[in-house]
């Protein structure tokens, strides 16, 4: 466990316990407490990583594993956007308001635990905590879709956990302990890696199910579509990425895919990643619900990360880490905008919407920024991460993979253009006649995230230095 970052776990936990007591008589206090906690954490992290001397020194003084710090920052950023949005989104009479914020705080604490730990069993424990909080969050508004999504999530992620446990048992037997360091040392020695790769395969299978990569994606669209609107942003933006994709990237670096150990596993992961990209993008093309299309797009983008993690060269890991961060930014914007649409127009069905640009210009243009970033259009942040991934594929001689990845990046642009034309541009529909732009506080998180997308894209050299530090530290 990274001691320096422990406070980022304990303080949200403390806030989660305090919120129900503090908010007993004044429900609004719950919103304030949650937002203040997360904002304070963000300010702290920004000071830790972005102070001028740190940037000038090329981020060489970043404490610990720079990957954890980046992800803790992402977790706090997305969670802050979600709680800020929720504070104005939640209906006044919602009876479980305090519990809702407590659950978000616990999930933030759990995600911090996941990314700061250095032991596989502890990782498993925090992933389970994260899963348990997700079900309750998904069903916040008592809708039928929410419960269905939660149940499907439930019955796919816990069998996956059992697979992970069997993998852990074999790992414990052959390594004597479960720390990352032991696995790293073992993999860099010359001992044949047979049983360890088998254990890693079981664990990877479990985490692949948890992250919703293609053959196991049944739960993803349902959970995202059915979830309470701000929660779907939380879920798609960060929760499933931390509970599944993070572990895949971590295991990929620990197994040292780049020096050719465990080639079969590496190839399998890359294949699943590519399949995810293709199936997710093709399925997104024919969706009529905005949220469901975003969910399939999410599957497709996770495919890029898994593909890069499976390749495992330093450049690919850099791309994977960067894409993980970018995915959190643009998916949060898009899901929060879908929540705004739902509030303003009462539906997210794309056939019923149209011409929403006129009443809702801010929502429309932040969506454009986010979707261009998703599709990888320069100079937005998504372009750079996709460029890194495709370059890494090309360099390793996997020309076909690189071409397919590039091609489906264009398909991404296509389905988002269809979406944008149906929802925001074009002739004014009846929904657009009556709708009005949502209030400024509801727009603020989307605008903030769009600003980050543009800023990271434009200030890429600084960010590239940081990501390179991450890749160097977690691979060496």
């Amino acid at each position, binding site marked *: 466990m990274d001691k320096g970052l422990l406070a980022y776990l304990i303080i949200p936990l403390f806030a989660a316990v305090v919120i129900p007591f503090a908010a007993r008589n004044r429900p609004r206090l719950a919103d304030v407490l949650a937002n203040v906690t997360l904002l304070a954490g963000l300010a702290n992290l920004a000071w830790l990583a972005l102070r001028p001397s740190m940037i000038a020194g090329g981020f060489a003084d970043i404490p610990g594993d720079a990957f954890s710090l980046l992800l803790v920052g992402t977790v706090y950023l997305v969670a802050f956007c979600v709680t800020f949005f929720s504070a104005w989104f939640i209906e006044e009479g919602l009876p479980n308001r305090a519990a809702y914020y407590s659950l978000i705080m616990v999930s933030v604490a759990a995600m911090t635990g996941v990314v700061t730990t250095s032991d596989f069993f502890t990782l498993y424990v925090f992933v389970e905590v994260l899963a348990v909080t997700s079900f309750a969050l998904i069903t916040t508004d008592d809708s039928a879709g929410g*419960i*269905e999504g939660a149940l499907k999530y439930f*019955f796919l992620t816990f069998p996956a956990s*059992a697979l992970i446990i069997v993998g852990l*048992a074999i790992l414990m037997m052959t390594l004597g302990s479960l720390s990352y360091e032991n696995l790293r040392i073992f993999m860099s020695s010359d001992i044949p890696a047979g049983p360890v790769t088998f254990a890693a395969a079981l664990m990877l299978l479990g985490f692949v199910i948890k992250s919703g990569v293609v053959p196991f994606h049944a739960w993803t669209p349902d959970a995202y579509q059915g979830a309470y609107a701000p929660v779907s942003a939380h879920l798609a933006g960060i929760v499933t990425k931390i509970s599944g994709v993070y572990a895949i990237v971590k295991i990929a670096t620990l197994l040292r895919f780049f020096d050719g150990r465990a080639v079969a596993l590496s190839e399998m992961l890359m294949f699943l990643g590519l399949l995810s990209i293709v199936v997710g993008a093709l399925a997104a093309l024919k969706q009529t619900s905005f949220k469901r299309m975003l969910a399939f797009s999410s599957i497709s983008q996770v495919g890029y990360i898994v593909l890069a993690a499976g390749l495992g060269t330093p450049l690919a890991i850099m791309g994977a880490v960067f894409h993980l961060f970018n995915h959190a930014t643009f998916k949060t914007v898009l899901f929060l905008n879908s929540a705004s649409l739902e509030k303003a127009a009462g539906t997210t069905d794309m056939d019923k919407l149209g011409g929403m640009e006129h009443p809702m210009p801010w929502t429309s243009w932040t969506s454009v920024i986010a979707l261009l970033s998703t599709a990888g259009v320069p100079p937005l942040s998504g372009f750079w991460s996709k460029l890194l991934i495709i370059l890494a594929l090309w360099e390793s001689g996997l020309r076909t993979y690189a071409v397919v990845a590039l091609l489906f990046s264009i398909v991404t642009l296509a389905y988002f253009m269809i979406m944008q034309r149906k929802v925001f541009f074009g002739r004014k529909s009846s929904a657009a006649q009556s709708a009005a732009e949502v209030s400024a506080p509801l727009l603020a998180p989307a605008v903030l995230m769009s600003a980050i997308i543009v800023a990271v894209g434009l200030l890429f050299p600084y960010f590239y230095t940081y990501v390179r530090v991450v890749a160097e530290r977690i691979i060496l």
Partner: protein
Amino acid sequence: MNSFAMEWYLIALIMFTGFYCMLVSRSIVRQLVGLEIVSKAAMLALISAGALANNLIYAQALLITMIVIEVVVVAAGLALLVKNFRLHGAADIWKLDSLKG
């Protein structure tokens, strides 16, 4: 054949039973039963591996944490079940088809 292989063979059978139950059943309660059986098998695998590697204390420490997790997971699952039953009066997974695609 050594005893470890025999134990893991039986564990594999138990786990298969649990997965089969989760696969064929439509009732949420039965799916939970299957899930419990699968996780029991995983626990047995852990303790058996610990005993083989003479690492029983370590395995026990992991098991205690696992048991705590399992209780909360089952409680959450049952809470979802009861909520679903109260709102929609059904305990059948496939009757929930408000989401399509």
